[in-house]
């Protein structure tokens, strides 16, 4: 009887330990479609739960925004206790249009001392994802995460927009 109770307790603890990172917040989505920038590429079907299981630490992507202490040394000066924000999505802080006149002119004129070098939304996604994938051996080719749309094909001159090999060498000289 005693051993059975201990075993059951052990199993429950294990189950708790495994699922805690995923289930501690009710509104953590398992799948996220990253689509706000889609144009040349189709949306990314991002396996949020899969990444949580793998990384455990939310701060790897979310900095201090879930209330956990910041992990980077220079951020700790201000965000030692973590500063939780309402919306944890990348796009609530990282601008979709990082080079608009407002952003460019305000960069050094308003006091944003430690957030001067904040990348735009597109750069944030790629620096974060590709940076980590490079380190940990994840997929890094463009089409590993998102498929080219037909406007993407036209832009990169691939697929049905590929240049005619017969005409090669007609433009420019090296």
């Amino acid at each position, binding site marked *: 009887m005693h051993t059975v109770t201990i075993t059951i307790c052990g199993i429950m603890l294990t189950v708790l330990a495994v699922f805690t990172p995923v289930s501690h917040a009710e509104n953590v989505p398992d799948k996220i479609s990253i689509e706000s920038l889609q144009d040349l590429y189709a949306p990314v079907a991002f396996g949020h739960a899969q990444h949580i299981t793998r990384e455990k630490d939310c701060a790897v992507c979310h900095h201090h925004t879930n209330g956990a202490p910041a992990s980077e040394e*220079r951020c700790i000066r201000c965000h030692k206790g973590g500063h939780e924000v309402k919306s944890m999505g990348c796009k609530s802080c990282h601008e979709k249009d990082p*080079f608009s*006149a407002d952003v*460019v*002119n305000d*960069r*050094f004129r308003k006091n944003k001392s430690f957030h*001067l*070098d904040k*990348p*735009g939304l*597109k*750069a*944030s*996604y*790629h*620096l974060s994802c*590709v940076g980590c994938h490079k380190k940990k051996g994840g997929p*890094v080719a*463009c089409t590993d995460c998102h498929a080219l749309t037909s406007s993407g094909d036209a*832009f*990169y*001159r*691939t697929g049905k*927009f*590929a*240049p005619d090999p017969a*005409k*090669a*060498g*007609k*433009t*420019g*000289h*090296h």
Partner: protein
Amino acid sequence: MSGISRRKFLCATVVGGAMTTLGSICGKGGKAWASGSFEGYPDGMGVLVDLTRCIGCRTCEAACNKEQKLPEPDRPFSDQSVFNTKRRTDEGHYTVVNKYDSEQGPVYRKMQCNHCNEPACLTSCFVNAYTKTKEGAVVYNGNVCVGCRTCMVACPFNIPAYSYSSATNPLIKKCIFCHETRLKKGLPPACVDACPQGVLTFGHREDLIKLGHERIRNNPGTYVDHLYGEKEVGGTSWLYLSGKPFEQVGFDTTLGNEPIISNVKDFLGFVPMVLAIWPALFTGVHLLATKGKDHGSDHGEDTPVQNEKEGPRS
């Protein structure tokens, strides 16, 4: 007797004058021309290029091709085989990315016009086809270009290309910072907009210099402690950060910090004087010095000593 004194006086005046002019151009007076002190227009824009972020996707090349309506490329922009050779900008490609191998993996380097503060192309152009705009772009006016291609020789970065393929209207082709379609309206160039990796940061040049140094400071061990373009050839609008020594990733680190014009301005200062002032002056001197003098050449070998004695007296 009085004639000789006057001649001596004139000669002394001319020689003295010439020496003074020469001295002021050659010597310390040359600093008054002050090239090298121009740090760009106060609101001049620039781009900070971070080589450590580039993954060689060539999206910037595709964006440039589309924005500038360049001819169809030989190969798709997704084709990575272009990295087998070191490419240069040409009439069909205003920007190219080259790959450099290192022990820590490949380093990619985008190249295009660096939009110098004191562009050598501009200063070498004798028809003023180039303009440095207040936004920071170095733009080119094909209507006045005579096709001498001196700018191609003058550019320290080997950027201007020539459209040799055009038999009737060949022109210089180079990156113009998307000046007409974007920069003028306060928009970043197409390559910056397209870059997925945040390699390219658009902003005021003076802000980007601070940002570049801050990025070096905040990421110890990531970057070489140098912002290429901050001082090179008098400063450029495009600035570079690299994790590898710059000379290993295709940058010329032997250019020095003086604008290219400084190498030639002393000499060029002489040209108008030598070509215009000297001939006039010396002709005048010669005419004055030989005024009323019988040149003797008409007389052949007729007793020259006699001529000398009789000639100038009047």
